[in-house]
């Protein structure tokens, strides 16, 4: 069971990284135009 000593912190840290990444996306306005972002990937931006 000693493996738990490693596995539990690892799972918490990985989850924490996910949380911090999400908070960063919220702070940097990435949810302001969800539909637009979904559509923009279809745009061919070469000529700009």
């Amino acid at each position: 069971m000693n493996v738990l000593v490693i596995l539990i912190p690892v799972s918490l840290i990985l989850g924490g990284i996910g949380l911090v990444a999400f908070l960063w996306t919220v702070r940097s306005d990435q949810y302001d135009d969800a539909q637009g972002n979904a559509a923009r990937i279809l745009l061919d931006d070469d000529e700009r």
Partner: protein
Amino acid sequence: MTAACPACAAMPPVEDVVSDPALQFSLPTIHCAACIGKIERGLARMPGIGHVRVNLSLKRLSVEGHVDATRVQAALTDLGFEAYPLDMAALTNTRDDEGRKLLTRMAVAGFAMMNVMLLSVAVWSGAEDATRDLFHLISALITLPVVAYAGQPFYKNAWSALQVGRLNMDVPISLAIALAAGMSLFETLNSGEHAYFDAAVALTFFLLIGRYMDHQTRSAARSAAKELTALEVHTAEKVTDNGTETTPVSSLAVGDRVLVPSGARVPVDGTLTSGNGLMDRSFLTGESAAVPVAAGDLLQAGEINLAAPFTLEATAVGEDTTLRRIAALVETAENSRNSYTRMADKAAQFYAPAVHLLALFAFVMWMFIDGDLRHAINVAIAVLIITCPCALGLAVPAVSTAAISRLFSEGFLVKHASALERLAEVTHVVLDKTGTLTRPAAMVPEAMTAGERGVAKALAQASHHPLSRALLEQLTDTTAAPLSDIREVAGQGVEGMWGDTPVRLGRGHWLEAHFDGLGLRIGTDTAHQIEAPETLRDGVTDALAQIDLPCEVLTGDSEGPAQALAKHLSLPVTARARPEDKLARLDALAAQGERVLMIGDGLNDTAALASAHASIAPAVALEASRNAADVVILKEDFAALPLVLKVARATRDLSKQNFNIATIYNLFSIPLALAGFATPLAAALAMSISSITVLLNSQRMRRVK
């Protein structure tokens, strides 16, 4: 956010960094990637443009650079998109801080839920003794700070309800979260077998989803109201000793002289001081014909100047203008609407006491059966968690969020949170004519030569009269002839010189012709008559055919145009209806038990819009009318109108279905919980499955056609 990319280096650097504030436009008709690309590329080619960005979710465009708003608007129209400039001052603080906080709390709760579940699964699958205690302890370390932080919106609401001696849904929610966390901590410290940490965080997480959606619905309504205010630019041209200066309408005082450019709305009540004018009063009276006025006449705020610019002296400003007084009347009528109890609130009134009583009953019952306080509290908590209105907290917000975004993508702004529920109950539809169903049109006679068309276009371009605008729509392919000395004669028409020939576009008798209506005369030739029938707005016929409710038209216009419309649409039409008559008709219908939907745009409709059970106004309507309406149509086209009713009904049906789903889950799980069989696993499953079912069911809104 714009990551460095290889292509960016190749872009020419934007010279003299733009200092002007960004211009904002409402673009109700955009819907896809192609629209974004077309607009952003199309505008980028305009000289002086800095940064162009389309926001598809808000259907809004922001443009930076040294450019004129009217030029951008013209360019957008050329690209084939309807565009309306928005007033920047009214759009300030568009960032939704409360929504962000909720989203952050939701993320924290979600993170905690996943980690606690991970540990709980191990316990459920058989971890024992020291391992189980360790897992419970780690769960407690994660759960306690998380529920203390993420659950704050519920605690605050519950506390403010308790302070005034009332119960709301947040009271049982807060109680369940607090008791579950507290009791689990006690169990953990005493090496107990069951801990409900996972249930406490899962409850917080699912309820925060519901809270976030509810917030989205409300903030959509609020930003809709803001956008509507922003559609109107609140400035006026004040005449001073050295020319004119642009000032906010709110700072005008009685006695100020104000310049009203042609095509603009009169900002305040006042008397005309210079020359003659021609006013469009259809917003105030419903009359489609323009009204000539002379110096000394009283003008009311909201009228539109159709002829040459004039000045007026303000006699009433701010709250004293006729427009504001009517708006104030409307607010009184609105208050009765705000007292409408929404479905979710009705459910909460019944549900909150029931949940408490049931938990109390479970506690008392088990105290009698085995007298074990710890067991009795555990059962009571299980009952609270399971009956806790997880699905009920989601049932309505999930559906109305889906409905409002569905309607927004079709060009409808829903302004009132309870609007959809009221629209679903509508049994009778009353429509206004001028400006709502119809708009002026002009028919260019076949006999006109290309040269004559060019002259007509050049003359029409000089005027803001609705007929001139309508004529221009028919002459889009024609090149305007080079004219000189163009001059508008108020109440008559426009004249100018085409080389050496005098040309006139205007009323028949002014052209010395034998007809009354609009005509064009070149030199001494016989005048051409231009037929100007009122035409129906696009999609009106289709929309009316699809609405399955009795419809009728009330108009302030005279018999002639009213009867023509009645014949065309085969609907009952009442002509010469004054605002009081419209209101009286609505009251009469309401007295018969009908729930009336009013659709109108003018100030003469405003009282009716506010007192009707539900109301819809087009975006071009006067501000007061838009404020009184529940739903605003942003597009020119009316064809999607029946969709509003369909979506509203679907909202009601899906909300009821969701309530039923939640109730069925409770019917199964409450007896289990009461009997003491509800393990933490069962509680977590019951809660998650019912919440997810409700969320999925709400997505059926997308299929409503």
